């Protein structure tokens, strides 16, 4: 198992290295270099020149890369052009909001999709299965932002059940418990929108994965032992079906970041998705690159966790 994990870790580090090189090249190819941006425009030409020298503006590219990586490891991603403060601070303000929404969506979609997919598979060709299939087709086919707009129009404007946008009621100044309730209330629609696609995808995979497992001989063995159908499905079949399900779950993490861009934009949710979008429109390169790098690292980490989970579930990998 250690060998397996070490191999995976080495692969991830290699990918991470490639990603940093690409991101770095982006920074240096992009118009408006990140060095001059940091300087106070009011200083004299000599001071300016001297500072550029000190910052490594005239260094050869590999040295620049090395220095940049060193800074990144220290958590120094440079200064945001638009917000006039360290990129890291800007991200830290927004990241928890996205994590809140993303985690909510992940939990919601898993809680719906896995039981639904299981039921679909066990009651194959039933009305439930048919409805589930059509609903998951709708889920993967409707543009998430359009679905979000429909929900805003219907539930927020017309029925006035949910707030239209934002994360808190502006000007209400809630404290403590009221604040939590207020945020939770604002969280409902964005989470549902973000969860829609995941739910549909995950349900389809759970269904097909379960159906595939049902064909195996060991399921017949479990039935021949006299186990109830619930135990056969939930214990013997599900644990085997989990491996592809985990793959899909780990692949959902990048989708959540992509989905967050649109969802946060239409709900005006102050997270890193909307931050990425505005940073791109503002051409705030240091911020864009930091965001890209960070999301990539999160995606890589989630892939690594998936690898770890495979090993936990499947003894054949564990003893490899």
């Amino acid at each position, binding site marked *: 198992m250690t060998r397996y994990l070490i191999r995976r870790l080495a692969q991830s580090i290699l990918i991470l290295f490639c990603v940093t090189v690409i991101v770095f090249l982006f920074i240096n190819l992009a118009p408006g270099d990140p060095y001059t941006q940091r300087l106070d425009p009011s200083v004299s030409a000599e001071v300016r020149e001297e500072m550029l020298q000190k910052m490594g503006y005239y260094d050869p590219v590999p040295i620049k890369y090395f220095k940049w990586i060193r800074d990144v490891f220290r958590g120094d991603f440079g200064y945001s052009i638009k917000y006039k403060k360290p990129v890291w601070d800007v991200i830290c303000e927004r990241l928890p909001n996205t994590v809140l929404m993303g985690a909510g969506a992940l939990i919601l979609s898993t809680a719906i999709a896995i039981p639904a997919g299981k039921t679909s598979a066990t009651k194959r060709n039933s009305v439930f299965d048919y409805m589930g299939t059509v609903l998951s087709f709708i889920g993967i086919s409707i543009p998430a932002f359009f679905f979000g707009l429909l929900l805003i129009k219907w539930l927020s404007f017309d029925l006035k059940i949910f707030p239209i946008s934002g994360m808190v009621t502006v000007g209400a100044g809630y404290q403590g418990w009221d604040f939590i309730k207020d945020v939770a209330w604002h969280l409902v629609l964005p989470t549902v929108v973000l969860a829609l696609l995941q739910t549909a995808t995950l349900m389809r995979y759970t269904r097909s994965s379960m159906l595939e497992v049902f064909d195996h*001989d*060991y399921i017949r*063995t479990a*039935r021949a032992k*006299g186990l109830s*159908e619930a135990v056969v499905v939930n214990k013997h079949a599900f644990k085997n079906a989990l491996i592809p399900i985990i793959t899909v779950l780990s692949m959902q993490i990048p989708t959540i970041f992509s989905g967050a861009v649109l969802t946060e934009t239409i709900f005006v949710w102050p997270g890193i998705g909307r931050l990425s979008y505005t940073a791109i429109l503002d051409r705030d390169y240091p911020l864009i690159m930091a965001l890209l790098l960070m999301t990539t690292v999160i995606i890589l980490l989630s892939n690594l966790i998936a690898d770890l989970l495979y090993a936990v579930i499947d003894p054949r990998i564990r*003893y490899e």
Partner: protein
Amino acid sequence: MSNILLETKDLRVCFKSDASVVRAADGVSFQVERGKVLGIVGESGSGKSVTSLSVMRLIPKPNGYIEGGQILFHGEDLLRKSEKEMRRIRGNKIAMIFQEPMSSLNPVFKIGEQLGEALKLHQGISGKENRRRCMEMLELVRIADPKKMLDRYPHELSGGMRQRVMIAMAILCDPELMIADEPTTALDVTIQAQILQLLRDLQKKREMSIMFITHDLGVIAEIADRVAVMYAGRIVEEAEVSTLLRSPLHPYTRGLIDAIPENYDPKFGFRSIPGMQPSAQNMPQGCSFAPRCAYACSECGRAVPELVEIQPGHTVRCILGGKGGM
């Protein structure tokens, strides 16, 4: 008390496919006596596995279903039992082992877990006592170091070891009937002999009945008391093993016996039955073996022959009444 443990009467099992319905077992009737081994022999597709799965009521749903007939276990019809009552019988009174030891064990659970499950379910034994009983069974199937075995995963074991584990799992609740569906087919010849020996010993020791399904008459000769030969969904001949091997009445049985490698006769070369078993979709009229039968006459195509008792305990489904096979 009757001596018959299991009896099927006119069992008919069907499978639906895209466009058609296929009858995989057509009027199968046989009896398994207490403490005896009934062998069921036939080619793949002859309906022997389907018959055994029906006894467990494990025909794959929703495409397969039991169309009619009776399966009497202790004189009670299993087909009339509820699913819940049936679960109390499966793995407890009737246990089953399968052809593919490599895939019949769940890869993600330890052997101990998979063994103990049935014991806990049927006898409510858990914890240390459960482990102890499992170890005992593993010892009984002659697995060295049973304690270590409990914590192993199936992929760490060889095919023969897995089949031993399957057998241990089957006898754990002391079943009255064991259904063995080609338990040795996937194994090497030497391992095959060991497993057969093991099954025979266990059967004698525990006075268990076995329904042994195989395509190999040679294996039947080793283990069975009585034997039923199946062809294209029907039993075509049934007799005591020694009788059947000595004086087979059905031309198909004769062909099977000739095909046993031990009966290889250099004068005739390697003999096999010409032709193929008809597929269930286009079953010939009349006797289903007629198209391959050297003795077939126009009479054979008219109607399915009845199963006739030629001698006490020896029945055959052939209009020649066995004369063809002599």
